[in-house]
């Protein structure tokens, strides 16, 4: 299992950040996530493998600076 924004979700082998987000709704604002405490940005989503028992926070990055 993994935890995404405090909700439990099933984990699968070879799961990437991109494949996980493809299963979620309303994530068009999500271009950055925190995976087990570490920031990962959208250009790296496809290559980022999610380990089992991961904790993920989706960051609503609208603006900054």
């Amino acid at each position, binding site marked *: 299992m993994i935890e995404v924004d405090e909700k439990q979700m099933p984990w699968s082998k070879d799961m990437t950040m991109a494949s996980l987000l493809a299963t979620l709704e309303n994530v068009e604002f999500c*271009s*950055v996530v925190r995976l087990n405490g570490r920031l990962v*940005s959208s250009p790296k989503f496809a290559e980022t493998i999610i380990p089992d028992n991961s904790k993920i926070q989706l*960051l609503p*990055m*609208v603006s900054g*600076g």
Partner: protein
Amino acid sequence: MDKIKLKEIKCISYERAEIKKGYTDKSLRVNLDSNEITISPIEERIKNKFIGGKGYDLWLMWNAVKASTRWNDPENTICISSGPLGGTPGYPGGGKSIVTSISPLTGAPIDSNVGGYFGPYKKFSGFDVIQVDGKAKKDAIIFIDGIENKIKILEASDLPTDSYELSDVLTRHFDEDKPVNVSVVTAGPGAVHTNFGCLNFSWWDAGRKRVRYKQAGRGGIGTVFADKKVKAIVARFGAISMKSNNPADLDALKLVTKAHSKEIRELDPKQNRMSLVGTTHLVPIMNDHDCLPVHNFKFGSHPESRVIGEEVYEHIFDKGFDGCWKGCTVACSHGVKDFSPFTGPYKGKKVFVDGPEYETVAGCGSSLGIFDAHTIIEINFYCDAYGMDTISVGTSLAFVMECFENKLITLDHTGGMDLSFGNRFNALEIIHQMAGGEGFGAIVGKGIRQMKQIFAKDFGADAAFMQDIGMESKGLEFSEYMTKESLAQQGGYGLALKGPQHDEAWLIFLDMVHNFMPTFEDKAEALHWFPMFRTWFGLCGLCKLPWNDIIPEDNKNTSEPAKVAKHLGWYADLFSAVTGRKSSPEDLISMSEAVYNFQRIFNLKMGFGTREHDTLPYRAVGPVTVEEYESRQERYDEQLKEKYSLDIGDMDSKEKVAVLRQKREEQYELLKDAVYERRGWNNNGIPTIETVKRLGIDFPEVLEVLKKNGVE
């Protein structure tokens, strides 16, 4: 240090104005030529039109300076104001000061929004805004004592020269028993010797029992301050509560303050964790999106950037409450305790460093090829202590390093110093030289625009190449975001009134990452509303960060998530609660639009403010060199083929650079057209008569300036 001695030159007692609904309705003018201290009422019509904060500053400056006024003329004015909402304890970001002057770098009005307690203390002492003009004969301190109700001009001698020690000494001097009652504004030797001097605004950190400070960094206001021989401006006031602003509706104020503050407390730990890492989370994010300036904005990422981002600073920052305003729950103004510099006058001593923030890490780190957290902290410390803007220092040094690597300047010019990217010791040495006005550092301290002229004229350097790589626009050095792949952010920088600073418009994510504004019209629309909301914070005395750096959880379900409607509603409620002027989020835009257009016309009055001044160095728009092109070849090739339908089969990289440049520069000009039209400006970027009438800023003197520029 022994007890300091200050000689009183002038002292007046005054009756402190009662605060009504966030306003004192009084301005304070201190003229250092004549040592006159004048307190004047602020007219209702000015209040209604200019709101406060930056609006008041600009109005006073407009009346103080002539079209011919230069930054170092006595009539140039430094204005510092708070704003009707400034000084609300517990409201996130509720205590900013807004500082303006004619900039040594741009020749036009510059504004800077800064933390610390000065703005609210000055207001509660009886003045919405302070205006300082003239030039003192000897180093002067202006003391606004809201406890004793006195204003003094004091002559200062034998005081510490740097801001770090000076802030501490003056804070303790002006209220030894209760240093929390004091906020001081100081510059330093770097402000004397460079064109990008900054001002440090202090507050007393009760937890750590020490003085802290934030910087009004941009545009060299510290240089003007030093030129006027102002050593410090000090405000002293007692306890502050929610009642201090005498709000129209105290209960409504408490309600909205509690709601916004609570949301941040709950959501910041789940989002950007700014209360732990400040803005350093942006380092890895910008790096991964290819937007972190590396080697003078040549590239947008670097494999070593992780060692200068949040993962490192989280462990270096001293733990404790770090709000630069009382009770701000974002609390992002972190610092480093017991830091021991390895160069300069503080070498081997233990100091507290306020910062670094993202801008300093990117400008004085990655852009210089310095991937060492310790060196960045040291640069941060000395820039603040010397009173120099870390952004202009970093961006100027990056330009110098690229010139050095391209042999436009050599060891003969730099005093024998190798200034290749990554040379951290020599970067620090240049900073010490800048502060002392010595050696090659004295030239760097003039800023990029003047360096380009000096390098071309005196060293025979290639002027066209320097124009392309010198990251300045309107004379101001760029802040630290790569804009090559975001046309909207190119506009955000190029069309910003004061020059390329991200506080006016930050659209990289909305444009480049989310692709929410595919057309010119979409981008122009965003370049209308975004700067208007940001302007509004400067009118009211608020910090911009709590608007959209921490986002309500249900924001994504709203019709326009980019605007963060819930927060805009809270801001309108806050304005209504304090001032009694019932307001909606739409009203915030119309308040800003009047001041924004007034500032554009102020630029025009000073000889700027037209299309030709909204230009960018090509480095901000696309790849200048073959090296840059080839580093992102796949991306650029695809754009030439797909977006512009070009057959590039027979082209070499040099030809591709040229054709891409032509296309991208055309796009930027088209963007200007669209933005000018949306803003109600003519094709030359000047507000039309209809626009100034609609906004109610059709004062005779405004119409006169427009007429002189062919608009009637």
